[in-house]
């Protein structure tokens, strides 16, 4: 039995489409990969270009940086993504409660950033390898540091902002 004419036409069009198999993959990844359900992804890394970029890091009580891979079994980049994910969730919850439009993470208040900073640091501390802390560490801190090209032709390295502090009891031996 022959297919209906519109289907036949669609089939002919499909056959003529340049690089049709790849085009199908591109369409699938672009549409269904937007929310990145694993393993689908539209690979959006660095698609949005901003004048600013921030990096997240941990220090001890004297602001000496801690090797995040060794101490927390996770890196600076993952910590930033975790912070942003948690901040995004908080802003969605706030928006749902208040009925106001959801704000961008860039527009979060200092109090919201501090709440999420504490939550993120708590997550880091839960996976912390105490034995890999430098001796005498009594607290860990989470900072963000921003590099900016806004209003300048020189890369501005802004002073790190303290997001949260977590006292250790007992301190690292």
């Amino acid at each position, binding site marked *: 039995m022959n297919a209906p004419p519109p289907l036949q036409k669609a089939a002919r069009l499909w*056959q003529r489409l340049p*690089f049709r198999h790849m085009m199908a993959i591109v369409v699938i*990844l672009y549409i269904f990969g937007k929310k990145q359900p*694993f393993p689908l992804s539209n690979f959006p890394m660095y698609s949005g*270009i901003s004048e600013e970029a921030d990096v*997240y890091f941990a220090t001890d009580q004297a602001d000496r940086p801690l090797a995040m891979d060794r101490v927390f*079994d996770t890196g*600076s980049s993952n910590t930033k993504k975790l912070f942003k994910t948690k901040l995004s969730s908080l802003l969605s919850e706030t928006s749902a409660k208040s009925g106001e439009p959801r704000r961008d993470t860039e527009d979060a208040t200092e109090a919201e950033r501090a709440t999420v900073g504490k939550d993120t640091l708590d997550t880091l501390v839960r996976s912390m390898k105490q034995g890999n802390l430098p001796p005498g560490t009594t607290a860990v801190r989470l900072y963000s540091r921003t590099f900016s*090209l806004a209003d300048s032709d020189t*890369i501005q390295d802004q002073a790190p902002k303290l997001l949260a502090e977590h006292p250790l009891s007992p301190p690292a031996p």
Partner: protein
Amino acid sequence: MNDALETSPRPWWQPGPFDYSRAQLFMIRLGFAALLFWNIKWETRKYTHQDHPNGLAHLFDFTWLATSPPGWGLKGLTIAGLVLYVVGILPVLGLLPAVFFAVSIGTLILSQGPMQHSWQLVTMMALAQFIVYLVHARRSGLKPDLQIQRLATYWGTVVIAGGYVVCGLVKVIESNGLWIWKSPYLAVQVMKTNWASFYDSLEPTREWTQQAAQFLVDHPWFARAFFGSGLLIEVLAFAILINRRWAFWFGLSMVSLHWGISELMNLHFIQHILAILIFLIIPNFPGLWGKKAPEAA
């Protein structure tokens, strides 16, 4: 996934499977099996929750992988399956454990919150090959013939091409076509990624990368040419499907793109580079495989 099986001559814009020999296909599958096994992050003990469910985690609970991490029994089963895939016997059954663990573990890890982009391409390549074998299982499920093996490899290559093209398109669309124009601002990302690397390990940052970042700001047209050529490589990645020569040379340019990113931004897409080496460069390396011998399908 059937129409690519046609053997009649095709125009260059309607590509199909390459005429790989059995030996070349064997080497591709061997390399890919090793890459796929390594691509799976088997150490799952610490992922005890899925607070930010990703993909299938909306439907299923994958935290059993944390409470009962796959031991050598299940890893052995996966390896045995991959051996079947490599030798070309029962590939549907052979790929099943690897695809299952790649998808399950990847989903669980991404359900922790932070997004990663290292494992998707290889997992999708495995899925695409699995689907090809599954679709043709009734015709040749036990020992797929040369045509089916070429088709499976072709779809792996199609996924590479599609992944890079969509990555480039997203840049163009998200930036309203201004990505290349705005690319000098990527200098702050160069600073960020290099400092992130420092905070990971406390290994001193490379001094030249900070100078390079400022150089990109001071010479915006150089930055546009540099990052713009990278974007072109992504958007034009469909060229790897045209023929084997294109696959080789364009594959080299894709590796050079990753090498540049790796040097400048300390971002290493090892899985992507290995996939390109296995599927595009090694099987098409001029002179490596001797003169092409025609082989019956």
